[in-house]
């Protein structure tokens, strides 16, 4: 299926860009007329993925985070968040709730669990030393439009 609209944005992995990235995606997703709850789910999932890039992929360094976002006719939004950081050795282990490699900072280890439960589909691919790509999508429920005229 061809997207009806798409956008991409890239930015350095400074933590100040966490709020920028989720606001940018939320603003683009607004075209699908999501509910406040759906928008909040998307923002939270994006925030988790971007934070992973900053805290893990580019730990102790600054690299570029690439986001591509596509909207489809049936109300689906697909978001791909990619980095060229350290990569993940064991994706299955990384996705376990409460697992975190970050000990110096207080990480709950819930990033992937949140993405998984707040979005419909989550796919993670990674190559150690080359980077990680997280693709997630959610179908925005069509609301019955009440016409007053």
């Amino acid at each position, binding site marked *: 299926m061809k997207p009806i609209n798409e956008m991409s944005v890239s930015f350095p992995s400074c933590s100040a860009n*966490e709020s920028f990235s989720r606001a940018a995606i939320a603003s683009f997703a607004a075209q699908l007329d999501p509910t406040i709850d759906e928008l909040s789910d998307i923002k939270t999932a994006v925030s988790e993925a971007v934070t992973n890039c*900053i805290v893990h992929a580019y730990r102790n360094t600054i690299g570029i985070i690439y986001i591509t976002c596509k909207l489809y006719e049936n109300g689906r939004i697909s978001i791909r968040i990619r980095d060229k950081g350290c990569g993940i050795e064991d994706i299955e282990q990384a996705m376990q709730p409460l697992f975190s490699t970050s000990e110096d900072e207080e990480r709950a280890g*819930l990033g992937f669990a*949140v993405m998984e*439960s707040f979005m419909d589909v989550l796919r993670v691919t990674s190559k150690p030393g080359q980077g990680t790509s997280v693709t997630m999508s959610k179908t925005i429920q069509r609301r019955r439009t009440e016409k007053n005229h």
Partner: protein
Amino acid sequence: MGVRLILREGEMTAVLSGEIDHHSAREIRGAIDEAASKVKPKLLTLDFSGVQFMDSSGVGLIMGRCKLLQIWGGSVRIANLQPKIEKIVSLAGLNQLCSIVKDVKIHEAN
């Protein structure tokens, strides 16, 4: 993002506002820990009524404060969560770690 601390009769309240993510959590954590380590309150209330957004960094923030307060036998309660934040709090199972209360009136220190 902001945090305002209120001390009253050995209890501490942190009134949080704005969005809590990995970026803002650092500052909030610093402010709370600095004051709490001196005062060693028996109860720390985290008031979320002014928080519009929170990701799992906020969960880490709450878990970390629970651990800190445990050092001197204190406890943490989280108050006034907005519905969209409740979802992540329940996903994290924070109700097993601290008490969650609604409609708590935060009294300003006189």
